């Protein structure tokens, strides 16, 4: 294997497999948004701080702006688009976010939901303290987080 400036990768996103040629320098978030046209995940900063691009990558929560798309060759990725179990039915977290008014502009919401999901997948009975820590990597500028924390708490057992 020799270094290359672009390569063809195979990625499974929300259960669907995509094969695309991609430049080595392209960040995973741009691959997801621009190449796969899955625009639910967002970009809110350029320094890896905001978490709006958070996705679940091989079972782990990551910021997709701090991974190269080529690194994801062979990976399994979950994004907000895959969260609802079926058309017309929301995931418990999605419903709870709405019930608790845990979103306003909705821009941070996809990343926030993925962080909440990753947290509860690993720790279904997360405490308030654990929820706060679990969401620390996601910036929200609308809600002040209180309603988000309440929304996740309501889903935690």
């Amino acid at each position, binding site marked *: *294997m*020799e*270094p*290359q*400036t672009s*390569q063809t990768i195979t990625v499974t996103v929300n259960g669907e497999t995509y094969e695309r040629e991609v*430049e*080595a*320098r*392209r*960040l995973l*978030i*741009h691959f997801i948004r621009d190449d796969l046209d899955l625009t639910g995940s967002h*970009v809110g900063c*350029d*320094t*890896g701080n905001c*978490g709006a691009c*958070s996705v679940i990558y091989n079972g*782990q*929560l*990551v*910021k997709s*702006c*701090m*991974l*190269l798309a*080529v*690194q994801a*060759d062979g990976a399994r990725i979950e994004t907000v688009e895959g969260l609802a179990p079926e058309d017309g039915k929301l995931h418990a977290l999605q419903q709870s976010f709405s019930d608790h008014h845990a979103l306003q502009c909705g821009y941070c919401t996809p990343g926030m939901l993925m*962080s909440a999901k*990753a*947290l509860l997948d690993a720790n279904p009975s997360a405490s308030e303290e654990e929820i706060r*820590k*679990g969401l*620390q*990597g*996601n910036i929200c500028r609308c809600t002040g987080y209180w309603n988000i924390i309440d929304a996740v708490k309501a889903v935690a057992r």
Partner: protein
Amino acid sequence: MLLREVEYVRPSSLDEALRLLAADDGARPLAGGQTLLNVMKARAAAPDVLVDLNAIEELKGIDLAPNGTLTIGAMTTYTELLEAAETKARPILGEVAATIADVQVRNRGTIGGNVCSNDPTNHLPPLMVALGAEMVIAGADAERTVKAEDFFLGVYLTAAGPGEVLTKIRIPAGRSDGFAAVTIGADGTCIVNAAASLNGEARVAIGCVAAVPVLIRPGGRDADAVRDAVRGADLDPPSDVHASGEYRRHLAEVVAARAIEQASARS
């Protein structure tokens, strides 16, 4: 967000990685990428080739020897560090790892990447120095071991030079450790931090005050002795928007004393 053109390769063995790194003096190892990719987004660094270490099994894993020495693969993530049973032998490791950045970064960021990037605000460089860790570096021809206090050479600069890879970190047995920091917001970026260890001699390493962690060996273990020793180190910390040099110098004393206090409470 937009990197300069770069070549990428993901070797599956250390030998292969070393070969690729040696083949191009613009090649750099890519560990967790949680610092490097951000610096590349700003185009403040632009390696020609990224040699991704993520597929190299021999760089992962944590081993606890019968004598209590921990050997931690450089590609061990913070999350693995704080969750692994072995690291409970040196509890400070998990405790500090748990306060680095956020879940997402802890899932990707690695102990090797943290020490090799040696951003002055990083947690692990002072911790490694205080714990008396040893850094194992592999080069094209040989492997060598460097003490943590000799490993850090500058910002983004360590003894693991071009063509080399930090492969593992060895940490001796011990429990009497402490870590204290003043951060921007809860668990935010460190303004000043300090790690202390009282296993044998008293060692305090202070971060964020110079290009490399500043190791101090205070004469005593009480707060005054530690503060005296920090004062004696004639620190000349940087000023920035979060702290003047003078404030950092003051905080260095405070966090050093607090880290020692925590360590003492565990001895």
